[in-house]
């Protein structure tokens, strides 16, 4: 692979809650005066914390001078936001038309089977969360799944473990080098 950047990661161990909150403060300060800042801030906050716990939402509501109910309403509307802790890796199974026609549903069933979780749930070890998606435009490669930002093409139930292993191995490698 060409781009291996895990080594350059600045955080050698899990950042503390305070450090994370400090980062959120920076984000809020950056966006405070921009129009329509709420959604970008929520997106960045979710990237920082992995999900959107209540204290984070309260902080955002204060920082952007929006009512808590407005913030919660927006979070509830968009399927990408989660108020529950999510797994390290988000698996999205495409159920768009092309993937549906080519067996996306069977792939979803196989993943549910293998991880032992249903859609919207997270594995007990917090490694994977499972979601469905409606088309990420990889229709030529159906059925497709997306893990974090990587699209995997022509997924077959038989090849699933191999794909998941990549992420598990990657995590272990990161942990080992840390």
């Amino acid at each position, binding site marked *: 692979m060409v781009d291996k950047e895990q080594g350059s990661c600045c955080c050698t161990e899990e950042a503390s809650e305070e450090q994370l909150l400090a980062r959120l403060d920076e984000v809020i300060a950056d966006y405070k005066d921009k*129009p*329509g*800042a*709420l*959604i*970008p801030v*929520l*997106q960045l906050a979710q990237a920082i914390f992995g999900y959107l716990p209540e204290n984070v939402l309260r902080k955002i509501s204060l920082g952007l001078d929006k009512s808590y109910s*407005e913030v919660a*309403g*927006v979070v509830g*509307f*968009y*399927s*990408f*936001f989660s108020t529950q802790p999510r797994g390290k890796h988000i698996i*999205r199974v495409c*159920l*768009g*038309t*092309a*993937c*549906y*026609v*080519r067996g996306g549903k069977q792939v979803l069933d196989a993943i549910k089977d293998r991880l032992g979780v249903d859609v919207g749930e997270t594995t007990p070890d917090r490694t994977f969360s499972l979601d469905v*998606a*409606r*088309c*990420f*435009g*990889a*229709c*030529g*490669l*159906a059925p497709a799944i*997306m893990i974090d*930002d990587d699209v995997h093409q022509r997924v077959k139930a038989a090849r699933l473990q191999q794909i998941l292993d990549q992420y598990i191995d990657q995590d272990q490698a990161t942990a080992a080098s840390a």
Partner: protein
Amino acid sequence: MSTIHSHVLVCAGAGCVASGAHDVSDALQEALRKHNLNTEVDLIHTGCLGPCAIGPVAVVYPDGIFYQGIKPEDAEEIVSEHLLKGRPVERLNFKMPATAQIIPALQEIGFFQQQQKIVLRNCGVIDPTVIDEYIARDGYQALAKALTEMTPEQVTDCVKNSGLRGRGGAGFLTGLKWEFTRKAQGDKKYVLCNADEGDPGAFMDRSVLEGDPHSVIEAMIIAGYAIGADQGYVYVRAEYPLAVERLENALQQAREMGLLGTNIMGTDFSFDLEIRMGSGAFVCGEETALMRSIEGKRGEPRPRPPFPANAGLWEKPTLLNNVETYANIPVIITNGAEWFAAIGSEKSKGTKVFALAGAVNNTGLVEVPIGMPLGEIVYDIGGGIPGGKAFKAAQIGGPSGGCIPRQYLNVSVDYESLQELGAIMGSGGLIVMDEDTCMVDMSRFFLDFVQDESCGKCVPCRVGTKRMLEIVDRICKGQGEEGDVEKLLSLGQQIKDTALCGLGQTAPNPVLSAIRHFRDEFDIHIREKRCPAGVCPDLVRAPCMSACPANVYVPGFVSLIGEKRYAEALRVHRDSNPFASVCARVCFHTCEDKCRRATLDDSVSIRGIKRFMVDQEVTIQLPEMRENEANAKRKIAVIGAGPAGLTCAYFLARLGYQPKVFEASPRPGGMLVQTIPAYRMPREELAREIRMIERMGVEIETEKALGKDFTLQQLRDEGYEAVFLGVGAPLGAKLPIANEDADGVHDAIEFLREYNLRGNATVGKKVVVIGGGNSAIDAARTAVRLGAESVTVLYRRTRDEMPAYKEEIEEAENEGVILKTLVAPQEIVVENGKAVGVRCDHMWLGDFDKSGRRRPQAREDGDSFVESADQIIAAIGQSLDTNKVLDNVPAKLNLSGYVAADPLYGQTSVDWLFAGGDASDGPSSVAEAIGAGERAAVGIDKHLTGEEHAFWREEYDVDTEFDPDADPVEAPRAKMKMLPAERRAHNFNEVELAFTESVAVREARRCLRCDYCAEPAEETASR
């Protein structure tokens, strides 16, 4: 440097290797060495070149000469003549239909050749991360031109005059939108780009953002200049991380170069852009919802007007276009409105990008001038349907669109034409569906989608689609009721009329369009509780079973063979289909086409297993019969002792009736004995199964012809309470050309019947058969066996379109039959009152006809030619003289001119008269005739007793071993062996050789047991 000047590509596909490609290759190598050409000519083994049937094949480049049917001894001639002297060997030379040619240069590949790239002009060409590459290809020149040479009005007019219409959905004139926004009052205006490409199946916007992000940026700056805005947003869906990354990078570069920001290119125009990412809400593709989302709110749509041009983002005048629309703008400004307006159709200018996906060979993005016929997109660019399956429909426009069935393959793909058919251009998702797609299931998919993605703000969309989904769900589960379709139609109309936003109003479209074009499929689900495509799980026990017209419990008998329980297996088969031995030989196994094992390696050879099974039978066993004294007294007549009539009699006998069968010819069996040749259907095998039916109490009286020896009315007068009409379609159609009645012209049915019933038929020396169906091939192969010196089949389309079964065509060629396609007979040439040949025109395939096949048209440049012959056999169709058969009994006819019968019970419009098989369906398969016979037997019983007693229809499981958790063992499909061509071409011995026991048992164990599910399903339910 290499001195290679020619390449010889020898096909090393499985088909060619099987027919000896390796030997040919060795011989070529040897010959090259002999002529010292091995350093100048490269011998290359390629993958399958396509025309396996005429293998081994090879192509010589650079001339692209195609050789077929090469034998090792031809190698010397190819090398010494063609490669050494440059003279192609005509004897072996074959002009390929354009589709199967291998062409090395990119520019000449059909997929790319027929496209016209405007939107995708840079995609796949430039490095999207380097702005210099965009600039080198005239990037930002349009912006320079607009800013320094044009006024905002001129820019707007240019876009308007180009005729560009919005590529995101409804196709509103882009220039008009620009003008409205430009003229709107306001101190602050915005330019937005909709890159929330949410329609499943569309991904052209992603591709443009990833492959050519600057084209969108440039267009948005131009738009800002035109309408007077200084700020813009690109709203990209979160599912496109790479697009965001590349766009971000491109914005950065443009800013650094002074192409974005303040005082662009030294002018006093300033404009900046920001990216906003979506958060997974489909409704945000709708413009008012999208603007709310940028504002940081819940992305709920609001009613229009006011339109965004007047009150959009933060209530300011806002211009919103999608990615593809913007990508057109720079080229329009650079080349001018007239240039753009010259492309496309009258009302729809320019090109459209389609995302081809689904059941099509070349999935991907294609850009074509608007107005190209759908068929050309699917076949010429898309490369057609994989696996030789049939095109069923194309879904265009995603959840707001609809489907276009095959009778409209000629439709010009433009905004208006699609709308007339109930689809929309939408964002350009084009999903091809083959015969394996169930339209009811597709409707359920789209309803599920819109139901899931409905933002919930308005009731019609939230509740209406839910109600529709419930109904379609029921239909898929086999719980549909009469009136459901009407309910769907009226609910759909209500939602269309009352939903708040564009997405809601169009949400019912996929269902309404499916009902419009495939109403019968809904009806079959509702009335017959059957899913013809074999998709809906509750209606399909196993796909092979639902594909079998006679509904044979395939996994049942196959798994019994796997345990060597042959007698039980036969019993299972004959429970639904008495003609096990007949079908083992002549059935064209639609079951195998749907076999799920094919997704793993290859389908199970169901017919091969069946053939082995019937060979194990020593004495024929009678099936379960229920004696019934009352039934035995009722008089039932069955007319025609073909597969439909005899099956009907068989099932009636199982219910205790004793029907009488009348047969016009001297021998029972119908087409099985009259036209299907003995090399495919040994006569003794047929006679055995007919004897079984006779032993069940069925009387068959031969040489008793309806319309000649008796009439339907006479049967009624004699006290027959019900009559089954299974007389087939016994007349051959006449050629519609001059001299069709000349001496030496015969019709195929007559020719076959004469030979098969009388044991002899006159055959010429040079025989020409006209037609491409099974009778044509049967007649040709029979003529070979009767001693014709040459037999040529003439067909007006290509081999792919021939209705005859592929394997039959291949076998005919192996036996020496010559196939000439794309030729159409114009007249019979006559000398001294005798036919001496057929004058033919060369044809080419033009547009698409109603059957979804290309229409053959005479080539203007092509001279006609005469195919000389002393016997001409026409096999162009069959018919039934219904007047003669019905003789004033007022049974209605169907659209094809055959006797109309109810699909469930075979009842005609006259309540005592039932019909089935070819007499009702027109020429169709043996298995279909058997299925129709069974249904009519059930119908007759119901008519006479008021109830159904079809005990054989009750579902049961066989008690064979099966471990559902075990992984299927990899094993290739077993192939039936054939007698070698030289040992079969001159006699009527059966040509196919049965499996051995070990092969048959192993093959049977390849079955994945799709029927096995009842127990595990309960188990999961109780968990």
